[in-house]
């Protein structure tokens, strides 16, 4: 126990910690803790007032217990009391306890703020710092409200000590992050900028962080910081290493401050003022020069500190993207690092070069280094085998970013050959990238087809549906490549063992374009068919289904093999297949081939029409995989092949092989359906709305990302709805927000967490009040970021007038009496309509009950009719309602009659209920 012997601390605490450490089991630990808690509780409750030291000791013990992972439900008051002590050590423990343990909604917040206020006003720099650190650590809204206007004063006051300025600057930064609306801008901002000139480099460091944060939001207000930052940077980089004494770290002058200044400059474009600009260029050149000097120390700390500055300087050069000489030098420097023996440096160089490659101006400069990059990729592969995947991942990222028309073939070839040995964890991503590059830079599509077939050959398991869908889409859309594609897949299928994905592509392409190679006797129709069919038995059900569709297409293309194929379809293994889908296809295709005339067959089995051009679903998948900010911008700025894109729609746009049928009544429209139809994107989704008229729970909305489920309960004029947001993806939803807009109802929604983890569900509670009768349902507006794209969804919430029904039981006599009372013509609404669903008595009863009224038995003389009664509760009034539903089985019609005291209510209820039958 080294620390105990130092004798500066609390002996009791040290003993307690030792005891805990000596506990042999979890149980023993809990026992010891409970004993201690009981002891502390009795001390706190005891009659004798505790002195400051004891209080500090016990509070510190409680803190230790909390940090071990146990709940603490007392001691907060004692901790707050410590704040008013005039001893540093007692205050410090009080503040520490509060920063770690007191949450923002505590009732103690007023007392805490009072303690902080006193310390801020104390003019004692140590106490002021404790108070500022506490605000910076907690960063709650209450603290922002109390101190956001005070701290700028402390920061810029002439007599504030340097160390307090440092804390005040970062404290303000924290409040600006958590509650930006509460931090007032104003006169102090100019004075903060001048802190960049401060003598004390610690103050400059803290101030630079603050200014950078503020400048990111309001660049114009802090423009003057550019010249000051350049001047400061220039003084640092040109200083001899001993000039800055305290701030020299392993012979590097103020590395952290240099990095911060360079980051601040990245908030702005290159300076317009020529002198300033050349001074900055000099700085950057100096930093680049230093990288070439022999190291002043062999310690890794020296090279890391130096390179931290160098990488930030390169980041600024790339950000400015305007000085060709600097860009080329940066690129050369990174090229050197690519060969470096240190993994960190190779990794960072690859990452940095990746951004360099995606910038417009410098793209050419980077390209000249392609040899270096490919070498680096090979070197790191050869040298490190399965070592750090992330380095190789970066290398692949870089190759992807560097790719253009001139080098695409080479890069794709490199990536393909790398793929053979690549780590499993990044194979799928490489496959996607190769597929995208091959498509984007395909000059002749034969190369594209070869590349994708190679992908399937090398890494078939990692070729997702999107990839093989895409190759089919492209082949169908380009007649110049169809013959080649047919020939190539035919050859590829010759291999004794080929991946199932190849069979899928082969089946589809030969089914569409097999005729283009049928002239060659080596690939005659029968040979093609036998080749495909030889794979059939090894394939999974979906592939077999696809092959069956290819066979029926063959019957149309090649009448000469019709009999052979019919035999196959007719075999027991097809017609009696245990799988319903296969059996159905076999039966239907066989029947179709027997009864349809050649003309009909030709129409039904016509070649697929071209697919509409749209964003590659592969790209969407890659974006999804990589998450926000990981994919170079080039995908958006330099996309060429697929024209217009809209990333917000891309996810619902996964290519399905199910285009709208080209000709009329086509009984085989689902021939190639492999994925579900894309959800129609409407402004406000109300697709599922009618389903909720007679029930309260279920899924109201679903797309590929999000599922929204509802549970609701109503009582008189009030309702509560639980909305469940399910993230269907494996990636976080960020900046999630939802609000309800309603013209007629009072809807109060509780705030939700802005993040929904992948696969997680979040609940939101809506409280609803019905004020008066209404017809427009509220709309739930949802917004979130997914993979960098902002998603907007609006869903009509199923809150209808009938939800506020209270059922009313009544006798036959009462019913008819009231029925007569409501006899005025405008009070009755009647509708006669055709049944949309099978007319089932039990189902109808359930629906009427679900609608909210009481179902009255024995009221109507005709037992087949349904009669119901209920009262609609609104805040302002109650509306009694009687209804009668008369089914006519022969005609498959219903007559619905509603009588209420209000015509608008009758009207609305009739609309709602009549849609349900």
């Amino acid at each position, binding site marked *: *126990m*080294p*620390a*105990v012997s130092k004798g500066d*601390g609390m002996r009791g605490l*040290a003993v307690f*910690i030792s005891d805990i*450490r000596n506990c042999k089991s979890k149980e023993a630990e809990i026992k010891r803790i409970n004993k201690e808690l009981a002891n502390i509780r009795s001390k706190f409750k005891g009659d004798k007032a505790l002195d400051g030291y004891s209080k500090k000791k016990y509070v510190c013990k409680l803190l*230790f217990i909390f*940090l071990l992972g146990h709940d603490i439900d007392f001691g907060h008051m004692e901790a707050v009391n410590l704040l008013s002590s005039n*001893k*540093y*050590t007692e205050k*410090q*423990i009080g503040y*520490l306890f509060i920063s770690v343990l007191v949450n923002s909604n505590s009732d103690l917040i007023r007392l805490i703020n009072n303690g902080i206020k006193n310390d801020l006003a104390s003019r004692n720099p*140590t106490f002021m710092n404790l108070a500022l*650190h506490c605000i*910076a*650590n907690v*960063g709650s809204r209450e603290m922002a409200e109390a101190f956001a206007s005070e701290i700028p004063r402390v920061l810029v006051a002439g007599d504030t000590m340097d*160390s307090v300025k*440092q804390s005040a600057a*970062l*404290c303000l*930064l*924290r409040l600006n*992050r*958590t509650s930006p609306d509460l931090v007032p801008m104003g006169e102090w901002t100019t004075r903060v900028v001048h802190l960049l000139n401060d003598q004390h*480099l*610690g103050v400059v*460091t*803290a101030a630079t*962080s603050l200014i950078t944060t503020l400048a990111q939001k309001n660049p114009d207000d802090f423009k003057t910081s550019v010249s000051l930052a350049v001047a400061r940077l220039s003084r640092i980089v040109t200083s001899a290493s001993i000039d800055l004494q*305290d*701030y020299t*770290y392993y012979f590097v002058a103020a*590395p*952290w*401050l240099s*990095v*911060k200044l360079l*980051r601040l400059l990245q908030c702005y474009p290159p300076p317009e003022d020529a002198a300033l600009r050349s001074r900055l260029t000099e700085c950057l050149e100096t930093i680049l020069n230093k990288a070439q000097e022999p190291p002043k120390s062999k310690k890794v*700390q020296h090279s*890391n*500190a130096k*390179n*931290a500055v160098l*990488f930030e300087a390169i980041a600024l050069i790339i950000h400015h993207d305007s000085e060709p000489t600097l860009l080329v030098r940066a690129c050369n420097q990174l090229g050197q690092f690519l060969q470096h023996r240190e*993994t*960190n440096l190779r*990794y*960072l160089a690859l990452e940095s070069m990746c951004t360099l490659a995606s910038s417009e101006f410098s793209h050419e400069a980077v390209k000249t280094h392609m040899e270096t990059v490919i070498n680096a990729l090979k070197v790191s592969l050869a040298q490190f085998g399965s*070592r*750090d995947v*992330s*380095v190789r991942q970066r290398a692949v990222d870089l190759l992807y970013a560097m790719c253009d028309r001139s080098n695409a073939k080479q890069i794709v070839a490199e990536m393909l050959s790398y793929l053979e040995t690549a780590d499993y964890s990044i194979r799928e991503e490489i496959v996607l990238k190769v597929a995208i590059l091959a498509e984007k830079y395909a000059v002749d599509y034969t190369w594209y087809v070869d590349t994708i077939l190679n992908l399937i050959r090398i890494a078939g398991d990692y070729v997702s549906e999107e990839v093989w869908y895409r190759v089919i889409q492209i082949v169908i859309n380009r007649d110049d490549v169809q013959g080649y594609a047919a020939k190539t897949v035919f050859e590829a299928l010759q291999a004794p063992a080929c991946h199932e994905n190849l069979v899928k592509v082969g089946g589809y392409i030969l089914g569409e374009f097999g005729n283009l190679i049928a002239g060659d006797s080596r690939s005659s129709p029968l040979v093609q068919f036998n080749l495909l069919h030889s794979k059939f038995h090894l394939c999974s059900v979906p592939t077999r289904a696809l092959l069956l569709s290819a066979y029926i297409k063959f019957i149309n293309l090649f009448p000469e093999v019709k009999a052979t194929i019919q035999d196959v379809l007719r075999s027991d293994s097809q017609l009696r297949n245990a799988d319903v889908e296969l059996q159905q296809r076999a039966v239907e295709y066989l029947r179709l081939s027997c009864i349809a005339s050649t003309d009909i067959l030709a129409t039904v089995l016509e070649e697929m029409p071209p697919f509409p051009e749209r964003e590659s679903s592969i790209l969407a998948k890659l974006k999804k995989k990589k*998450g926000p900010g990981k994919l170079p911008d080039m995908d958006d700025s330099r996309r060429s092949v697929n024209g217009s894109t809209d990333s917000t729609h891309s996810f619902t746009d996964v290519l399905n092989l199910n285009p709208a049928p080209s000709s009329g009544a086509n009984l085989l429209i689902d021939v190639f359906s492999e994925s579900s139809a894309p959800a129609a994107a409407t402004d406000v989704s109300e697709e599922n709305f009618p389903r909720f008229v007679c029930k309260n729970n279920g899924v109201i909305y679903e797309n590929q990302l999000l599922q929204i489920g509802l549970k609701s309960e109503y009582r008189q004029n009030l309702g509560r709805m639980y909305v469940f947001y399910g993230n269907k993806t494996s990636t*976080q939803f*960020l900046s999630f927000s939802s609000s309800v807009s309603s013209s007629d109802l009072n809807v109060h929604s509780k705030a939700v967490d802005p993040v929904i983890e992948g696969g997680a569900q979040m609940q939101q509670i809506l409280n609803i009040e019905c004020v008066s009768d209404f017809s427009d349902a509220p709309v739930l507006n949802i917004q979130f970021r997914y993979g960098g794209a902002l998603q907007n969804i609006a869903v009509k919430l199923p809150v209808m007038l009938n939800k506020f029904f209270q059922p009313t039981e009544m006798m036959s006599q009462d019913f008819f009496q009231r029925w007569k009372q409501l006899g005025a013509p405008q009070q009755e609404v009647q509708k006669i309509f055709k049944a949309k669903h099978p007319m089932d008595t039990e189902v109808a009863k359930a629906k009427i009950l679900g609608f909210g009224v009481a179902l009255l038995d024995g009221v109507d003389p005709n037992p087949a009719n349904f009669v119901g009664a209920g009262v609609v509760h609104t805040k302002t009034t109650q509306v009694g309602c009687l209804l009668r539903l008369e089914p006519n089985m022969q005609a498959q019609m219903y007559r619905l009659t509603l009588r209420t005291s209000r015509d608008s209510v009758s009207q609305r209820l009739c609309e709602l209920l009549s849609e349900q039958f």
Partner: protein
Amino acid sequence: MLGTTGKTRLAKWYMQFDDDEKQKLIEEVHAVVTVRDAKHTNFVEFRNFKIIYRRYAGLYFCICVDVTDNNLAYLEGIHNFVEVLNEYFHNVCELDLVFNFYKVYTVVDEMFLAGEIRETSQTKVLKQLLMLQSLE
């Protein structure tokens, strides 16, 4: 600061999380970092952030930062911090950090505040810590 066995020696949070989330995050960080060896980089992608870490004997010092932040600056920020601890506790060992946990928080606050670097000069930090040490 995470021990190899999974004990957390110190955690500082610069964003709001509830206790359960904190525990989950710590476990995740531990899982991500401890599987890596000396040949690996000192950087790991983590959720939408990245972790910069360095191992000293049985302790991992980890900082979670934005993906655009300067890796090497934070890596040396960790080392700078460790050198200060070493100086302050005279050859620091893990036990010092256990018994003096409340002082370690002070060291952190002197050097890092609001998730930013506050003071980088070892001389200045140590001078301040010794001054505080002398106070009652």
